[in-house]
C-alpha cells in the first residue's frame, strides 16, 4: 500500500468515525442518564436516513438533513414519554426487550412507508465533487463529515461540562433520586436527554445519505456498530465514545483498504473483545456504580417441579395420536426452543449473566452436526451426539473471556462473540456454504418420519431440561447463585465465582448445542441465521417473557413465542411489528415476566 493510499484510507476512516460517533454519543448519553441500553438507536438512525431521502426530494438536501434530525428527535420525545417513562423502574433486561420491540416496530413502519427497496439519497449540492489529495480523488462531502464529528464532540462536551443543564444531567446520571430531592425535575431531564440522543442519531443518519443508501437492514448494523463503540469507549463516557469511534473507524477502513473486506464484519468485535479483556470497563470507562433505586434483592428460586415436567412429557407423548403433521412440526420447534431457552436461563437466572449471544452455541451445535454428517460422513446419530461437545467447547473458549466481566459489559462481549461466530459461518464459503448454508442435513432413516423425530426431540429436550433443573438444585447450582446474589460474600466463603460461572457457560453451551443439533436435523438445512443476533434475541425474549425468576418460565416463554411467531408470520403482513407490539404490551403489563 503506497503512502497516498494509506492517507486516503486514513481519511476514509475519519469520515466513517464521524458517523459512528454521532450515533454512539447519543446512545452513550441516554445510557448514562437512564441506564437504558437503547437497542432502537440504530432504528432512529435508519429513520433519519429515510426521512432525509424523502424530504430532500422537495426541500433539497441541505434543508432535509436538519429537518429529518428534528423529526427523529420528536419521535424520540414520543417514545420516551409514552413508553420508556413507564419502564424506568423495570429490570434492566426487560427495558432492553422493550427497546428491541421498538426495533421490530420501526423496521416494519419503514417497510410500510418506504417499501423493501434501498433508497438512494442525493449528492450534497455544492459538495458533490472530489478534491485531489496526494494525487488521489477524495469526495468533498467526506471532508465535511470529518469535521462534523469533532465539532459535535466539542459542542456536547461544552454542553455537559459548562452549563447548569449539563451539570444536572451528570448529577442525575449518578443518582437520579438524589437529584430529584434537590429540586431537579428528572422526568423532564430524561425526556430532554432522550430527545437529544435521538436528534444525534437522526442527524447521523440524515448526514450519511450521500455516502450510502437507506435500507431496512441498516438498523441492526448501525446498532451493533454503536454498541461496540460505546462499550470500547466506556459506557456513558462521551470522550471515550469519540476515541473508540476513531479507533473502530480507522480499523475498518484499513481492513477494506488492505483487501480484507470480509474481515470488516468481525474486526470491530475482535477489537472490542481485546479491549475489554485488557480494560474491562472500556478505554475511558469506570466501573458502573450500582444505580440508585429500590434494592436489587433477588427473590428465592422455587424448587424444581419434576412432577410438572413428567406430566408435560406424558401429555406431549400422546399428542401425535390425534394431531396433524403441522402441529407435530410446530411442537418439535417448541421443544427445541424450550431447551434453548432453558439453557440460556441457567446463565441469566442462577448465573446472573445476561448472555446476548446465546445463539452462537445453538449455531455451533447445528453447524457441527451438519458438518460431521456432510463433510466427515459420520452417521447421523454420532453427529448428533458429538455436536453438543463442540458447542460446549466454544462456550468454554468464549466464556473464559466473558466471565472476566459482568453486567452490560458481559452482555456486549457475548454479543461480540456471537457476531464473530456468525461472520465466520457467513464468510467461510468452502466449509459452511456461506450465506446459503448447508443443505441435506437429514436424520437417519429410522427417524425420518416427523413423528419419530418428534419423539426423539421430546425425550432429549425434556430429559435435558430435567438435568438442568436438577443441576440448578445441586451444590453447583447453589454456588453459582451465591456468586450472583453477592460476589463479595461468595468469595469470602471460598467460592471462586469466576470458575463457577465459567463451568456454567460450558454447561449452558452444551445444552444449547443439543438444541441446535436437533434443530438442524429437523429442518434438513442450516443457514447463518441460526447463530445471528436476532436468534439470540429470540432466546432472551423467551426467557424474559416467561420470567427469569422461575424455572418453568423459559419453557412457557419459548412455547408462547414460537407459537406466536409461527402464527403471526403466516397470517399477518407486518408480523414483526405485531410481535413487537405484543412484547411491548407484555412488558408494560407484566414487568416481571408473565408466568409468575
Amino acid at each position, binding site marked *: 500500500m503506497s503512502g497516498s493510499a494509506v492517507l486516503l484510507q486514513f481519511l476514509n476512516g475519519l469520515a466513517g468515525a464521524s458517523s459512528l460517533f454521532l450515533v454512539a454519543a447519543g446512545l452513550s448519553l441516554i445510557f448514562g442518564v437512564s441506564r437504558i441500553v437503547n437497542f432502537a438507536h440504530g432504528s432512529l438512525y435508519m429513520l433519519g436516513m429515510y426521512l432525509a431521502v424523502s424530504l430532500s426530494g422537495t426541500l433539497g438536501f441541505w434543508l432535509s438533513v436538519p429537518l429529518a434530525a428534528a423529526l427523529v428527535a420528536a419521535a424520540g420525545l414520543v417514545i420516551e414519554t409514552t413508553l420508556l417513562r413507564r419502564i424506568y423502574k423495570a429490570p434492566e433486561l426487560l427495558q432492553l426487550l422493550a427497546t428491541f420491540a421498538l426495533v421490530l416496530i420501526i423496521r416494519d413502519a419503514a417497510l410500510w412507508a418506504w417499501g423493501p427497496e434501498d433508497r438512494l439519497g442525493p449528492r450534497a449540492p455544492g459538495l458533490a465533487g472530489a478534491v485531489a489529495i496526494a494525487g488521489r480523488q477524495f469526495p468533498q462531502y467526506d471532508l465535511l463529515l470529518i469535521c462534523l464529528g469533532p465539532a459535535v464532540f466539542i459542542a456536547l462536551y461544552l454542553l455537559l461540562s459548562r452549563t*447548569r443543564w449539563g*451539570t*444536572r444531567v*451528570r*448529577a442525575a*446520571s*449518578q*443518582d437520579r*433520586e*438524589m*437529584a*430529584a*430531592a*434537590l*429540586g*431537579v*425535575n*428528572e*422526568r423532564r431531564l430524561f425526556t430532554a436527554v432522550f430527545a437529544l440522543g435521538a436528534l444525534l442519531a437522526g442527524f447521523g443518519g440524515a448526514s450519511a445519505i450521500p455516502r450510502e443508501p437507506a435500507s431496512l437492514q441498516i438498523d441492526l448494523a448501525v446498532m451493533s456498530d454503536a454498541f461496540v463503540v460505546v462499550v470500547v469507549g466506556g459506557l456513558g463516557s462521551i470522550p471515550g465514545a469519540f476515541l473508540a469511534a476513531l479507533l473502530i473507524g480507522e480499523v475498518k477502513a484499513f481492513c477494506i483498504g488492505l483487501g480484507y473486506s470480509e474481515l470488516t464484519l468481525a474486526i470491530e468485535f475482535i477489537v472490542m473483545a481485546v479491549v475489554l479483556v485488557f480494560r474491562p470497563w472500556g478505554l475511558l470507562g469506570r466501573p458502573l456504580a450500582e444505580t*440508585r433505586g*429500590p434494592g436489587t434483592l433477588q427473590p428465592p428460586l422455587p424448587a424444581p417441579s419434576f412432577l410438572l415436567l413428567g406430566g408435560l412429557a406424558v401429555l406431549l407423548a400422546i399428542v401425535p395420536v390425534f394431531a396433524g403433521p403441522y402441529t407435530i412440526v410446530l411442537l418439535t420447534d417448541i421443544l427445541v426452543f424450550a431447551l434453548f431457552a432453558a439453557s440460556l436461563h441457567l446463565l441469566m437466572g442462577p448465573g446472573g449473566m445476561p448472555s446476548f449471544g446465546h445463539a452462537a452455541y445453538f449455531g455451533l451445535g447445528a453447524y457441527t452436526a451438519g458438518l460431521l454428517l456432510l463433510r466427515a460422513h459420520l452417521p447421523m446419530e454420532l453427529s448428533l451426539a458429538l455436536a453438543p461437545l463442540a458447542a460446549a467447547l466454544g462456550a468454554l473458549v468464549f466464556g473464559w473471556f466473558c466471565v472476566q466481566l459482568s453486567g452490560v459489559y458481559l452482555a456486549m462481549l457475548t454479543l461480540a462473540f456471537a457476531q464473530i461466530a456468525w461472520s465466520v459461518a457467513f464468510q467461510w464459503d468452502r466449509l459452511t456454504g456461506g450465506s446459503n448454508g448447508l443443505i441435506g442435513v437429514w436424520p437417519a432413516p429410522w427417524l425420518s418420519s416427523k413423528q419419530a423425530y418428534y419423539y426423539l426431540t421430546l425425550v432429549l429436550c425434556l430429559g435435558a431440561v430435567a438435568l438442568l433443573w436438577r443441576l440448578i438444585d445441586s451444590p453447583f447450582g447453589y454456588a453459582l447463585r451465591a456468586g450472583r446474589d453477592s460476589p463479595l460474600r461468595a468469595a469470602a466463603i471460598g467460592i471462586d465465582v469466576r470458575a463457577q460461572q465459567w463451568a456454567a457457560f460450558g454447561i449452558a453451551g452444551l445444552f444449547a448445542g443439543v438444541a441446535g443439533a436437533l434443530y438442524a436435523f429437523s429442518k434438513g438445512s442450516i443457514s447463518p441465521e441460526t447463530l445471528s443476533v436476532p436468534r439470540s434475541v429470540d432466546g432472551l425474549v423467551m426467557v424474559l417473557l416467561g420470567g427469569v425468576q422461575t424455572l418453568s418460565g423459559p419453557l412457557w416463554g419459548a412455547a408462547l413465542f414460537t407459537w406466536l411467531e409461527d402464527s403471526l408470520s403466516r397470517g399477518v403482513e407486518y408480523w414483526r411489528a405485531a410481535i413487537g407490539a405484543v412484547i411491548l404490551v407484555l412488558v408494560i403489563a407484566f414487568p416481571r415476566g408473565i408466568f409468575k
Partner: protein
Amino acid sequence: MLEARRLSAGYGAARVLFDVELAVGRGEVVALLGRNGAGKSTTLKALMGLIRPFSGEVHFDGRRVDAWEPYEVARAGLGYVPEDRRIFTDLTVAENLEVGRQPPREATPAWSPEKLFELFPALRTLQGRRAAHLSGGEQQMLCIARTLAGNPKAILLDEPSEGLAPILVEQVGKAILELKRAGVCVLLSEQNLSFARRVADRSYMLEQGRMRQAYAD
C-alpha cells in the same frame, strides 16, 4: 411548618409506617429516635415524596404535598440529607453545590456560597476537587451544604452522625445548632441518643413503624 397526619407508607406490599403523626414548628430542631428498621428513614423519605404514602397526609408550609413529586417538594423549600450522603462523586464540590442551588425565598435564610463556606470552612479550599476524593467527614459536610444551597425552609437529616468519627460528630452537631440559629427548622433521625439530646429541642420515638411517644427535652 412540617406535619404528618396518620401517615402510612412502605415498600411494595410491605408496610413500614403505621399512622405516624408528627409536627415540626418554625425554628425547631426535632429528633426522630428509634432503632434500625423502626421506620425512621422511611418516614423521612415519605415526607420528601421519595416514596408515595399508602395513606395519610403530609403538609408543608401550609400546603398538602403528599402527592407531589420529590422535585416539587424540594422546590417548595424542603431539603433532604440522606443517610448515606449520596454526593455526586463525579462532580466537583462546586458543581455539587450548583446542582442543589435554588432561588432565594422570602422570609428564609439565604445561603450564598460565602455563607456556606463560613459554616463549613473545610469546603472553601476544596471547591475544584472531585467529590470522590473527599474524606468521609468532608463528604458529610458537602452533603449538608448542598442541601442548604437550595435555601430550604426546613431540612430532613437522616442519621447525620452515623459512621462518623467522634470528632466529626461534634462538628455536625455544631452545624445543626448553627442552622437553628439561622432559623431553619430541622427534623433529624438518630440512633445516637446523646447526640440527639445535645442538638434537639424535643424528640419523637418510633417503634416498629408506630409513634410511641413524644417528649420534650
